[in-house]
């Protein structure tokens, strides 16, 4: 075997603390190495051309590049050796940047370590085998989980790209948080007016199959061939018959049901259509409050329904769908304001969340768009907004900025002035974060044109005084304590991961951060991909986001799906496990340990044996580590290769 070693300076990144020329010189002593050189930037075009030229001139069988992390440029160099006519797996990389030059200053020690790492890469390469990918068919349907604005956008874009879309929504209507908003910043246009048409498009698009009141139960398979089980909850109404006329809602005698859509500002009927623009506009019975379902009597809705759509004994069902890609767009939930005892959220009726205030402002809300405070229905004249409630606060384990609260608070202050011209609004803030197109101008408008009083400081306590709320805080710019007697207090509750997000992530086999937000593949360069092939992210499930960013990510995820579906066949990664039938004793440990269900038990002449399903295996290596016989080996990372590396390191 003839091996070439290329040592990269990476400008001064490596060259600054590693003598690259000496590493190249020393590598000449390693077995099978016939060519070495050091190069300023191996990844640059001249750098790659140099590698290709050296392969051709010296008839090299394999190449080692000592440079940066393989996460960065392994694909680059694999393509390089492939261009020179070698198999892409006849290539090894030694990481002498992240593992050497960036972490130590001693040039002598660094150079020695770089030589050792290059040496073990050579030993591994000497045992590399050419590997070839297998092709498999791809199912060009996509599952979108979550029908908020990000999911809607992703679904519409995929459907417009002529792909079949399965959209799953947990609530009885799509629209998500955006449907609950009255107006949107920074243009103050009506939220349901701009979202409504998109929701209607989802309902009418021939390529979109919508499952509302449904959740993903189970996901199996792999990129291009996912099998999904969807649990559809029982609305106790036959939606094929329901016309959404709303007669049932008018007559339902159980009027104290939890009004989830209106953020529990007021209550609603047990049979309910959340809002006039709901998609699908179908009635749902809340079994916790329905008199018929709890006590066995009533049934008024069933009597009055003109299409006889009420089905009290309806059961939930499991639906199976096959798709090739998945977009997770499960959004966010609000921080629980009752965690700040000093603010009285959950205890004082007139201390509410920003989203509850949106419902009070909305014409389709429980007060018909007239701002009335929850306790006594009076119109508030002094409104205090408190920002960063559950954001930027380590003591409640929410150290991150929720990003959109500064903007929605400014918007709500503006809308308050529009609704109640003789009102005064106070905003307690720590910093105003408005980095977006026309965003800062918008917050300035709230102050300059609408006379909103911005107070730089936090609120320490809110307590009732008569029928008012006394808000005590600080004005750090004045250097004093301040007090405001308020009629209504609106807490800008921060965003947190949606309920159940970690569980869904585990079904999708994607990672999530300690707060439950899904992890993108790269924070800058792969923002909508995950580390599981064929699973993409859109919207706030990845981290708090405003509407423009959510929509952009929805479209971006759709672009990724359409790019994936542009191919007719997919190739697997050949770095997968293979079973040596002669050594396998059929103990089945690998079958049980595989997290991807990629190993099955087969019968070979009456004996049980393990077999790897090549397109499903992700090459994680768990089975290799588990197998008591050493019968299952991970291609490109065999035991022999790893031991050769260890031996090389011990002998150097």
């Amino acid at each position, binding site marked *: 075997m003839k091996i070439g070693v290329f040592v990269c300076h990476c400008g001064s990144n490596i060259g600054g603390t590693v003598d690259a020329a000496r590493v190249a010189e020393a590598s000449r002593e390693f077995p099978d190495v016939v060519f070495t050189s050091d190069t300023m930037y191996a990844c640059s075009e001249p750098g790659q051309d140099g590698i290709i030229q050296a392969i051709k001139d010296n008839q090299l069988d394999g190449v080692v590049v000592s440079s940066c992390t393989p996460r960065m440029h392994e694909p680059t160099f694999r393509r390089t050796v492939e261009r020179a006519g070698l198999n892409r797996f006849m290539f090894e990389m030694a990481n002498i940047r992240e593992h050497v030059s960036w972490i130590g200053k001693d040039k002598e020690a660094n150079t020695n370590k770089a030589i050792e790492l290059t040496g073990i890469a050579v030993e591994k390469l000497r045992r590399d085998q050419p590997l070839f990918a297998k092709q498999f068919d791809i199912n060009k349907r996509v599952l979108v989980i979550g029908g908020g604005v990000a999911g809607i956008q992703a679904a519409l874009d995929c459907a417009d790209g002529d792909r079949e879309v399965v959209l799953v929504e947990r609530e009885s209507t799509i629209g998500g948080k955006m449907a609950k908003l009255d107006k949107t910043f920074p243009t103050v246009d009506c939220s349901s007016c701009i979202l409504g048409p998109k929701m209607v498009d989802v309902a009418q698009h021939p390529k979109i199959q919508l499952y509302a009141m449904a959740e993903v139960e189970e996901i199996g398979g792999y990129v291009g061939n996912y099998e999904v089980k969807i649990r559809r909850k029982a609305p106790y109404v036959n939606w094929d018959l329901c016309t959404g006329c709303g007669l049932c809602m008018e007559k339902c005698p159980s009027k104290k049901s939890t009004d989830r859509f209106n953020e529990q500002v007021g209550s609603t009927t047990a049979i309910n259509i959340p809002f006039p623009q709901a998609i699908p506009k179908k009635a749902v019975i809340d079994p916790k409050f329905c008199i018929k379902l709890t006590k066995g009597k009533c049934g008024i809705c069933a009597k009055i329904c003109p299409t006889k759509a009420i089905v009290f004994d309806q059961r939930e069902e499991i639906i199976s769908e096959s798709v090739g890609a998945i977009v997770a767009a499960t959004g966010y939930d609000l921080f629980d304001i009752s965690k700040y005892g*000093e603010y009285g959220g959950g205890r004082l009726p007139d201390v509410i969340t920003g989203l509850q205030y949106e419902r009070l402002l909305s014409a389709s809300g429980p007060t018909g768009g007239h701002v009335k405070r929850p306790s006594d229905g009076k119109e508030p004249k002094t409104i205090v907004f408190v920002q*960063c409630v559950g954001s*930027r*606060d*380590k*003591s*409640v384990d929410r150290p991150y900025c929720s990003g959109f609260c500064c903007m929605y608070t400014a918007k709500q202050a503006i809308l308050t002035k529009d609704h109640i011209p003789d009102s005064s609004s106070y905003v307690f803030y*720590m910093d105003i974060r408005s980095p977006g197109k026309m965003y800062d101008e918008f917050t300035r408008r709230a102050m300059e044109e609408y006379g909103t009083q911005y107070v*730089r*400081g*936090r*609120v*320490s*306590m809110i307590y009732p005084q008569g029928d008012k709320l006394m808000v*005590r*805080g*600080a*004005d*750090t710019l004045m*250097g*004093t*304590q301040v007090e405001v007697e308020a009629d209504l207090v609106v807490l800008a509750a921060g965003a947190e991961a949606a309920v159940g997000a970690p569980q869904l992530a585990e079904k999708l086999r994607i990672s999530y951060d300690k707060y439950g937000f899904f992890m993108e593949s790269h924070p800058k360069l792969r923002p909508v991909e995950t580390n599981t092939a064929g699973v993409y992210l859109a919207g706030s499930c990845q981290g708090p986001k405003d509407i423009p960013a959510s929509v952009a990510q929805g479209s971006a995820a759709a672009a990724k799906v359409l790019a994936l579906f542009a191919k007719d066949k997919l190739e697997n990664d050949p770095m997968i496990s293979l079973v040596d039938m002669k050594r396998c004793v059929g103990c089945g440990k690998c079958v049980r340990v595989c997290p991807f269900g990629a190993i099955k038990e087969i019968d070979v002449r009456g004996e049980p044996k393990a077999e790897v399903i090549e397109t499903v295996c992700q090459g994680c290596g768990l089975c290799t580590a588990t197998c008591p016989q050493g019968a299952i080996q991970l291609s490109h990372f065999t035991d022999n290769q790893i031991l050769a590396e260890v031996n090389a390191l011990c002998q150097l």
Partner: protein
Amino acid sequence: MEVVDIHASCDHEFIAKVEEESEQKVRLCYQCGNCTAGCPYTFVYDIPVSQVMRLVQAGQKERLLSCKSIWLCATCESCTTRCPNEIDVARIMDVLRHMARREGYVAEKNVKKFWDTFLDSVEKHGRVFEMGLLATYVAKTGRFWTDMELGPKILPKGKLSFKPHEIQGKDKVAEIFKRFREMQQ
């Protein structure tokens, strides 16, 4: 108002000392103002507690050790409880008070006199002798009429004895003071 040269006037040694003695990182403070918002003594402070934190960050030793706030702090720990960054602000106030005492700054003389008298009383009697404390404090400060109206209310309840309390282990308490003085030397 004078211009503060934030580079030249920043006493890094002072910041390090405050951090070491309080076991807190003053850099964690992002000046939200929650400590000031909840502090029940802001009305008498010359510098609100959030600005005390800022001055520590800026290493303004002189201004801090000569301020009144550190002496007026009642260590109620509202600031510590409310701090979103979990800084023990009350402890920092305490450290500053000790530093001021060590370096001879006393912006609130009567507060210092009260503490000194209180501790003297404990050293001598094993626990505080209220009447003796009162007499010494009044004699030292000349504040004859302070809280005088409370006398008729608490005397009949036996709250104010004319003799020191007889307790066991008086000498042990005195030992503590002795050990402390030895440690200081």
